[in-house]
């Protein structure tokens, strides 16, 4: 099983890098509305950065369906465990 804590740490770094804000924190329920500058293009940059950071690949449908950061962590965990999209 993938260690979700490790994923949290890694994903928080991805957010901090992409938004260039070392103090940025996210919670499972953080959505695009909560972070300034998180628009559709930033969303793609985040996913591309997360793919590179965790060595995973998201499906086209998954990219659109993610509602909050918690779902992102779950998706990465599933991918790391070899799971397919739900």
């Amino acid at each position, binding site marked *: 099983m993938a260690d979700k804590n490790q994923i949290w740490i890694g994903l928080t770094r991805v957010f901090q*890098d*992409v938004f*260039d804000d070392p103090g940025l924190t996210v919670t499972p329920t953080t959505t695009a509305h909560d972070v300034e500058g998180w628009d*559709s*293009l930033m969303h*793609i*940059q985040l996913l*591309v*950065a997360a793919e*590179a950071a965790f060595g995973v690949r*998201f*499906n*086209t449908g998954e*990219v*659109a369906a993610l509602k909050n950061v918690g779902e992102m962590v779950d998706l990465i965990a599933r991918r790391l465990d070899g799971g397919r999209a739900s």
Partner: protein
Amino acid sequence: MTSLSVLVQHGRYSEAWSQLLDESKTVSDHAQFLALVRQRDRLAKTAPRPPAPRTVRLALLGGATTETLEGPLALAIEATGLGCEIRRGQYNAFAQEILDPDSPLLASPLDVAVLLVTPANIPTWPEPGDDLARVQQIVDEVCGYWVDLCKRLHERAGCEVVLNNFHPLPTRPMGTAGTRLPWDRNNFLRRLNVALGDRLPPYLHLNDVDALAARHGLFRWFDERYWYHAKQPVSFECLVPFVRSVARIVGALFGVTGKCLVVDLDNTLWGGVVGDDGYEGIVIGEGDPVGEAFKTFQEYLFRLKQRGVLLAVASKNDENNALSVFANRPEMVLKREDFVAFKANWEPKPLNLRAIAAELNIGLNSLVFVDDNPVERDQVRQALPEVAVVELTTDPADYPRLLDEAGLFEITTLSGEDQQRSQQYEQNVRREALRQSVGDYRAYLGTLEQKAVLAPFEDRYLDRITQLVNKSNQFNLTTLRLTRSEVEARMQDLGRVCVYVRLADRFGDNGLISVVCGVREDTRLVIDEWLMSCRVLSRGVEQLVCNHLADRARAWGLASIEGLYRPTAKNALVREHYAGLGFTLVEQSADGTTRWSLDIARFEPFDTPIQLVKDY
């Protein structure tokens, strides 16, 4: 290296800018590059970018999303040394934006328009079963459609235009049979790419996306997922090579490109150390895998030389040892004569690079340095930050590709001058030898048998004139850069004097070496552009031009000629240019700009050692 945030905290903004731009030249990872783009945006809010020699006003139009490209493209252009202001069109609205007379995108002046298109923007594809003639007809139509749109863009905004060609489609439904079917879509795209190249007017430049996608791999270049999501034309992974390619084209259009490649010898041009191994022991040429790699690198350098890049040597070597390889190893592709400067000695490399730049009369920022030794590279980087240093691996098989990838010698058109340049510098070396033997300078000029053509701008020389206007730094009174379109507009302006000078002598043709523009204002002829290639400094061309300007002013019934000198970091050479021609100083501004005047009534024409001819 001090971190960027520390530099910013201490208010060392110009250092912060140069560090940021330096870093952006070498970063290849897209995430790191995007991080630099964000840092750039933040820095720009705190401290404006230090002034650049020219700020390029650029419009980005696209049949795909251009939003993600804007920041990276701006940074890539700034990394070349130019300033950059980008305006962005709406997604897939390029046709309206070009054709609508009220389009806000084109309402104010532009230097460059980049039109980004993808296979999804191709208006007509062949139908299955179409024969070759029909496919060729569609190729012509589609090609005409793009070229025509670009022509309108050029005419409306008076700008250079950068279009791209098309990368292949990622699927091949016709399989191998597609290669024999003219209507196969990939086959069609190949024909279209070639046809576009064949039909480029001088102001239109083709970003070779087909070649870029091949280099980086089509499946990496194009990511369908982000096309479906955001109409992203290039994957994030390949964003950097894409924007760098556009930035190099823009750089080349505005004269930011290398002129001279300075190479080391031992383990750079050949394998081994000639001082230790002797010329018989060094590795070069067929029969040895490493020898073949060095041979291939020399062939690449020779091709660069053929298209106008000057080659020079800076090597820590005994000169006779270094020359013995050229004399005794016929496998050497490059000969001693291929180099316009040859420094084989024990001086530090930065000193030799300075000497080479001085000898060739070019700026240090026109030099590109290639050396297998990382210590030498680092020393040059530290001592001469203006010189572009190519990062090499320890494998000579990589050298040609690494130098090529660095893209430091980009050109968008090839002029006849480019191909003769190396020869012209060689002739200069021989002229210098004659000068030393003749002694008296005036007598020497007489023995040169100089002939010149001085004539108004002509279509056939517009490329060369534009090149000179954008490249000359030292003998350049105002450093007023102009695009080809601006040069063309001046040529057609009847209120202007716009002349070029070509110069030949007994050693050969120097080519088109001087450009001067003046405009009539009241009773004065105001000279706003006067530049000359330093190769022909003090040969009498300046006086010849001055005589001509006086004739023109007199013919127009003007009272005086007014000259302007605007100082830059590089043109101190001509600070006293007008004084030397007998002008009087009329005004000096705080920034060092000086204004000079020559009274036509009192002007005595110069006696010059040059014969004016209609042609030679």
